[in-house]
């Protein structure tokens, strides 16, 4: 029996965001307050992809990613999606690890990535174990 859920990913976990940066071969996120071109100010974890004039600022309270790429002139807009993709994958991996589930990762032809999660010794009902930030990488 089965069901399908669509989720709007929210980047609220600093450990998963750091793991996402490692996955994308980026420097770890840094806590910063950034003033964008329109003078809006955002504080949060800043990720600096190559070629970006302004960093992508992650507000871990709301999970929103703030950026200004000026129609692609100040950075590749698609990279914001790739950062969110990497975040979701790493967050799901952390969740699986905390619950003792097994994960297999498959890259799909369209650039999507699929994680196949199967039960560990405790089945799918196991209580989560807490993870420290250092275990996230």
């Amino acid at each position, binding site marked *: *029996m089965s069901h*399908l859920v669509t989720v*709007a990913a929210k980047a609220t976990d600093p450990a998963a965001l750091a793991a996402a940066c490692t996955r994308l071969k980026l420097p770890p996120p840094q806590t910063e307050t950034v003033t964008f071109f329109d003078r809006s100010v955002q504080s949060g974890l800043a990720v600096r992809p190559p070629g970006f004039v302004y960093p992508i600022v992650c507000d871990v309270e709301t999970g929103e990613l703030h950026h200004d790429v000026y129609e692609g002139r100040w950075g590749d807009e*698609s990279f914001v999606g790739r950062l969110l993709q990497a975040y979701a994958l790493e967050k799901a991996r952390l969740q699986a690890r905390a619950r003792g589930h097994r994960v297999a990762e498959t890259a799909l032809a*369209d650039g999507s990535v699929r994680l196949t999660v199967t039960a560990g010794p405790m089945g799918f009902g196991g209580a989560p174990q807490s993870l420290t930030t250092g275990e996230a990488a």
Partner: protein
Amino acid sequence: MSPRIEITVTPAGETSIQTKGFAGPSCEAASKPYEDALGVATAKRRTPEYHAVAPVAQTVEQQA
């Protein structure tokens, strides 16, 4: 099919979670922690497999 959860994330960050091979509504309990961890569920539908009749174990009593 052994129970499993498939989490697919597109290059744009769009995320879907599908359960397969579960018996009854346990699939929803299994995927809920992943839904909650990843963000906010925006749509949910039960696949035809969800409504399939679960096989019922039949007991054959042997008469002595």
